[in-house]
């Protein structure tokens, strides 16, 4: 981590909510529309509670992190999911030196 900001185009998408069919399909469908590549997915169900963390690459994308965050957070909220989309640097800065 060289401490430079804004160089990477990777973002972390996290989704929390009651488990149901089609959550991953919804997120990945949206990502495909914006030409966003999924690099890694980590998903678990804890007592019926769905938790997913996805690392994506926005460099080929037609949308910025902040804009994607707005779209997914709002759509997620409408279907009872809490979605966060954040540039990876906030995690890198906090956990990596």
């Amino acid at each position, binding site marked *: 981590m060289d401490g430079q900001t804004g160089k990477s185009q990777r973002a972390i998408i*996290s989704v929390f909510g009651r488990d149901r069919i089609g959550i991953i399909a919804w997120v990945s469908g949206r990502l495909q529309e914006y030409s966003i590549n999924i690099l890694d997915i*980590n998903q678990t169900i804890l007592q019926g509670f769905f938790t997913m963390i996805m690392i994506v690459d926005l460099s080929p994308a037609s949308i910025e*992190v*902040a804009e994607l965050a707005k779209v997914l957070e709002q759509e997620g909220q409408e279907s009872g999911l809490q979605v*966060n989309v*954040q540039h990876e*640097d*906030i*995690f890198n800065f906090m*956990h990596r030196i």
Partner: protein
Amino acid sequence: MKITLAPQEILQTLDMIRQENLDIRTITLGISLLDCRGDDIATVERKVYDKVTHKAANLVQTGERLAARYGIPIVNKRVSVTPVALIGSGFNRDGMVRLAKALDRAAAAVGVNFLGGFSALVQKGFSRGDEALIEAIPEALAETLYVCSSVNVGSTKAGINMDAVLKMGEAVLESARRTAAQDGLAAAKLVVFCNAPEDNPFMAGAFHGVGEPESVINVGVSGPGVVASVVKENPAADFGELASLIKRMAFKITRVGELIGRAASEELGAPFGIVDLSLAPTPSIGDSVAEILENMGLERCGAHGTTAALALLNDAVKKGGAMASSHVGGLSGAFIPVSEDAGMVKAVEAGALSLSKLEAMTCVCSVGLDMIAIPGDVTAETIAAIIADEAAIGMINKKTTAVRVIPAIGKQAGDRVEFGGLLGGAPVISVNPFAADRFIRRGGRIPAPITSLSN
């Protein structure tokens, strides 16, 4: 391409932001107004307005964009300017009020929620501009919404200007009187310093020092809730472990400040000045410095042991934070504003926390007596004596101290005041009823301490 982040790390960051109120408290853009000086007040007003609105045009937008990109709230976007006593030197009191109003219009135009720098540095004496500015403070603060004022009355190098201390006692009281209907709100925008830092991003004391560049980005982080949680989760940790846990959290909190500072600096084209490593509480539940101290094992903040607990906290925050940032500055330490901290308010209501204990606490933490409502029938001399005591603590201990007390006009100890928003509300605290008038009215300067002779 390597994915190096563990899910637990991502979840920890999310918890810090969502559950524990981690946020960036402020991005403050410092702007030099030295090139706005002139002989004609209308010209200076226009230059000041134009410069602030030009330099800070994208500040609020940039803050919002960064908040969305990194998924962390950036609560305040603010501006600090060169001490107005320097810019308006040559104008009288009315000219100074006009400059305050021009700055207020500029702050409104760019959408910041406070603008600091209606300030004077008078630790050793007054220039004509300083005198005019101090005279103008009550009217300027009562008739503007966003302007904040600070006056530095002492320093370790210069001693304490006791004439300024008395003038500021009067200014605090008059500011409160002019805004009595709003519980003395103008006094909440006025802070009296000893050893004021020139790069502080926090209000009401922010100003852009003369040693600073043309413009600069300073960032203040927050995060008492994060520290309160880690202390609560480790009830059996001994003091060494406790300090270590707090240091680790302070490091993480400060890294976020460093990230936002660098990003804001790139986007706004202003150099990145400092991260202020302060633990700044808000009135929200779970965002309290008092709660950290109580989680350490005190029944109530203010109990015997509070000063020791705060000393440990303050030092651990600095040690952890200093490693996380390339440039640390500002006030850097734990803040203990009463009205802005739900735990402090509860401690006062329970009778656990007094003005005397708060004064002791200021010896070991950042800043000083902050956001404390005092009875409205207090005299200017008593306020001045409170300021003198704080300034003495700062002068002798080579640290910043400050006083921001709000005389609650028409109210007594135990009554409540409400300022709303981040400023919160608080019960009125009693002051010592014995007078210090003869001491305060001696005039002159308390000499600088022997420790000032460090060359």
